[in-house]
């Protein structure tokens, strides 16, 4: 898990660069085997996380650093990646990871959706304080197995869904 990321991006906390980050993430997810709609959802989750860093972490300052690192998740028996792992880090003030939550979905008003979206789209989403300063968000999404070539037994699939996917 600590090996070097396959791609690491450092970007300034300016919303102008969100589209670049999305396109990169989406394109890497595509090459890791996700379909178009999933790629777009993964890019959305990353976008929401970056917006939150810019808005809440950096109070909309546009010249602070944000890091995005991408890895393929451990490969299956055929050497194909089994998903994508994305780590987003900042140097902003540290906050209680338990405070990262949005409004009740039923109470419709502007805002309060980002964290829901992140948790809904990804299989795992974990906030933590970095050593030193700043926050770290670790996101994992597993690849759907192709319908035409099921490689795992139903048992294996249920083991997988035993991983806590929302919290």
């Amino acid at each position: 898990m600590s090996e070097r990321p396959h791609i690491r991006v450092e970007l300034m906390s300016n919303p102008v660069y969100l589209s670049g980050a999305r396109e990169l993430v989406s394109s890497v997810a595509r090459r890791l085997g996700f379909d178009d709609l999933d790629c777009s959802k993964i890019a959305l989750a990353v976008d929401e996380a970056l917006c939150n860093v810019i808005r809440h972490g950096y109070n909309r300052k546009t010249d602070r650093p944000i890091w995005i690192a991408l890895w393929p998740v451990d490969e299956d028996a055929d050497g194909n990646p089994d998903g994508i792992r994305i780590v987003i880090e900042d140097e902003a003030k540290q906050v209680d990871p338990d405070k990262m939550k949005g409004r009740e979905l039923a109470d419709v008003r502007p805002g309060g959706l980002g964290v829901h979206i992140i948790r809904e789209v990804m299989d795992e989403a974990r906030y933590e304080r970095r050593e030193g300063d700043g926050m770290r968000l670790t996101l994992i999404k597993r690849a759907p197995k192709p319908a035409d070539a099921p490689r795992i037994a139903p048992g294996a699939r249920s083991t997988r869904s035993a991983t806590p996917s929302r919290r």
Partner: protein
Amino acid sequence: MHDSDAMPINSETRDGAVILSPVGDVDMAHSPSLRSALRSAQEGKPPRLVVNLTDVRYMDSSGLATLVESMRSAKNARTSMVLCGMNPKVKAIFEIARLDQFFTVVDDLDQALTV
């Protein structure tokens, strides 16, 4: 070079209905443009406000927030607000946020004007 933070938004009035058609990605960089276009469209309290999303490739929660805010003003002003032309990626975010029921969503502009 053009102002890269503004997004192009076409505006048109048809039979009293105002139709706004943003073009591009409605993200944190661009939703302020959409917000001010919606606000000025709503100043005249039109009977109907159509947001035509046919040329929107992508939307994030800042776009959703803008539309939710606008929907609330529309309700107060008795403007019927209708969304149309969502591609599957845009539709997905409304579903994830459970907002597909909150808005009136139709397939295309013709339906949006007659629904």
